[in-house]
């Protein structure tokens, strides 16, 4: 049983696991690409619906967590070895290990290594030398970032729920669960931030006692009862009245039209009649944004079948009448198509972005200018065990290590003079 657990642990914590899993998903992706143009969407749907694929995907964050444990443990052990807190030197922690029958008098060697730019620590039977900063903490931050990223993707993929609702000024805040109050105002304006050009604020007043008011912005998205409120597109909710000689009773409707930005065309159909109206929001001559100012002027085209009957302009609250036809826009309001997103993976992905940026910004200078190099010499009964590792500048470090070993060997032959405390030059 112990052997089985050890094997499972070895697989889960293996550095080979992520490329194997990513390769596996790549094969599935390529396979889907033969049959569908929406490859990624299909792959996501497959993963969501298949326990096997979900389980394979879950191995990625699991592997990151296991790697954190393994690498933190190795880092701790190396630190303890440097301070002589370990009973022996483990070859698996180092790049190179050599046992030699050599002098265990390290005093001279310490001076020599110190002159080569290494910091040293000497105890009764150990000489430790090191320089630079270890990349291990950075790597652990990197692995934590990858853990957050893969966990976020996994959770997001399997549990994300989205409800799309049009939110209209003065109308109910159509939250997916329960009463969300009234959308009092939608304010669209210029932003002074470095990333956002425009700000959108939806002010919602809660109904009932208390009457608290809440504001929902663009980014970072606000939350409503645990769901992110994610504004997607802007549009106009247009209330219009229409009558025609063959439609004397008239027709009125509040229609939601994707008319933003100005110039974009949308059409609405007069149900049960051959009439159709195409509309465009006119861009004012002064260059202002009608969605910001609220001064909305519409370019319309009235069609009967494929024939254009009339075309012209109607402002908000205005009317057009000719030859028995009457078209009026008594009211129009700002509207935002909004997604209510339930997703606990989003925060993890944000955290991953922060951790990965930290890891990269720390890794690069350390790797380039302060790479860690260590060598340890420990006297064991009848021999000296020497270990070395380098995270950068390996060849130069190996040269220093080999010369240190040569010196130890040389001192072995001069043991009597050492024991007498005479410096051999």
């Amino acid at each position: 049983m112990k052997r089985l657990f050890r094997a499972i642990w070895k697989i889960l914590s293996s550095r080979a696991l992520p490329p194997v899993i990513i390769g596996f998903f790549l094969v599935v992706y390529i396979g889907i690409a033969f049959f569908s143009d929406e490859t990624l969407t299909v792959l996501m749907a497959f993963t969501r619906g298949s326990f096997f694929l979900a389980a394979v995907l879950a191995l990625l964050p699991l592997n990151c967590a296991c790697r954190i444990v393994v690498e933190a443990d190795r880092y701790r052990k190396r630190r303890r070895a440097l301070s002589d807190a370990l009973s022996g030197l483990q070859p698996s922690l180092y790049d190179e290990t050599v046992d030699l029958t050599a002098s265990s008098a390290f005093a001279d060697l310490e001076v020599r290594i110190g002159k080569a730019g290494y910091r040293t620590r000497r105890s009764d039977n150990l000489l430790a030398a090191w320089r630079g900063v270890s990349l291990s903490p950075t790597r652990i931050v990197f692995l934590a970032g990858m853990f957050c990223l893969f966990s976020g993707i996994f959770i997001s993929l399997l549990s994300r729920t989205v409800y799309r609702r049009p939110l209209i000024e003065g109308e109910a805040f159509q939250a997916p669960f329960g009463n969300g109050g009234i959308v009092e105002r939608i304010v669209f304006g210029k932003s002074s931030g470095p990333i956002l050009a425009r700000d959108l604020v939806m002010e919602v007043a809660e109904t009932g006692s208390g009457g608290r008011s809440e504001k929902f912005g663009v980014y970072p998205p606000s939350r409503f009862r645990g769901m992110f409120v994610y504004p997607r597109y802007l549009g106009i909710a247009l209330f219009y009245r229409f009558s025609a000689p063959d439609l004397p009773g008239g027709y009125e409707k509040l229609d939601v039209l994707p008319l933003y930005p100005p110039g974009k065309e949308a059409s609405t159909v007069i149900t049960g009649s051959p009439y159709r109206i195409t509309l465009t929001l006119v861009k004012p001559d002064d260059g202002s944004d009608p969605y910001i100012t609220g001064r909305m002027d519409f370019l319309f085209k009235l069609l009967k079948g494929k024939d254009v009957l009339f075309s012209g302009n109607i402002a908000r609250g205005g009317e057009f009448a000719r030859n028995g036809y009457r078209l009026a826009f008594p009211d129009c309001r700002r509207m935002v198509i909004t997604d209510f997103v339930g997703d606990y993976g989003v925060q993890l992905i944000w955290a991953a972005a922060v951790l990965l940026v930290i890891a990269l910004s720390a890794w690069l200078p350390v790797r380039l200018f302060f790479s860690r190099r260590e060598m340890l010499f420990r006297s064991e009964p009848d021999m000296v065990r020497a270990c070395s590792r380098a995270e950068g500048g390996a060849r130069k470090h190996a040269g220093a290590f080999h010369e240190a070993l040569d010196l130890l060997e040389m001192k072995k032959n001069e043991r009597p003079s050492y024991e007498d405390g005479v410096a051999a030059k």
Partner: protein
Amino acid sequence: MVAVTLSLQLIAWTVIVLVIMRGIPGHRRAVTIGAGIGFALGVAGVLVMYRLLPGRVPLGMIKTALGVSFFFLWTIAVAAIYRSNVRDFPLLRWGWFVDTPLSAWTGAIMAGIVAGSIIACRLPGFDIAAIQLLAFAALALAGALLASAARAVERLLPSLITVTPSALLAAVVALLLFCSSSLLRLDLFSPLSMKVMKGIHDFVHQFMESILIPDHIFIRPAIWGYIGILFGKEVGFWGGMVIWFTPAILVALAIYCEPLPSVAHIRQGAQRRRLLADAIRTQRYRLVIPAVAVVALAAAAYQSSFPSVEYWDPKPLAVTATPAGEILIPKKGEVDLEDGKLHKYLYKRGDKEVRFFVLMTPDGKLTVDLDACAICKPDGYGQAEGTIICYYCKTLIPLDTVGKPGGCNPVPVPFTERADGVHIDGMSLVNNWTRTVQATTRVKEGNK
């Protein structure tokens, strides 16, 4: 003339055999015979399949074999780089297998079959069956002779040039891809670029949605410009280049990063330095073959991007719509819509321009389509015999499937066919175009 056309491919084939021989040095004879047999089998296989099956079947099989080889190369390249950097990497200790008779025979025969079939596909069609048979036989014989010649050349190469198993695979696959890149229907680079563009677009879109990034109307244009690079026209090409070259570069890096032999136990400095110097020199010579692979891949990408084929591609004629927004294209007049040729048109509405074409398919039906597909950037289509080609991804689309949606087919446009001509709704045409090509619209191209 045929020999000149095939000369580059035949040289590549010789280099393939040479690399395999150097990579499996203990079994040169097996490699020579296996490669010759494999090549002849590949040529014969194409001849038989062309006679028994529709042309797309053998081409599909060869393309699949190339795709699988490229994916296999990727796998081995990743494993190689892991092995050279991660000391305790337990997987794929497969180097021992390479220098065995089994691998020499199978490797040489498989490479021969694929190379032989690719080169045979380049042979022109002959009206007389006997001449065709003779041409295929001559090609098979040439392949076998070149395999023998490679053995003689290999002896002349400096012994310092050695080949690692991963470098062997990289060079063979790269040279096979070079051979195939001269045939549009076997080329992998262009479809790869197209898939990469679509893949990157989808990934970026999904990622932005997953972290709830707002739509572009909220973002500063300068910032959106940077994000827009990922949705841009060239991302497919450069992404394709990265995927194309990475395995060969990974193999080279794996060789470069291979740990030097441990010399800590040697107490003579001179001996240590000599051992290390020898190891470094061997390592440097091992980089020659991955460099050959990189050159072959670059040549393949170049051939794929600049194919030497010409297509019928008329200059788009400007059309206008009636006040009701209807476009009428007469069947006869300046152009004859029923002549089976591609007829391109340009429709302007406001600041938008739409390029579309009308074509009569081989079954006698008119079809109206955008000069763009739903996947690639809208570089448009040209017409060749029996097919149209997407200029961006070089996909060939049989004429009888034009008018059907999906894949790289041109996006069909709803229209009405009457006695006087073809009637198209201008608004739906513009909407269709905008929806299809969005920000990557590039219409002011005229005749190519």
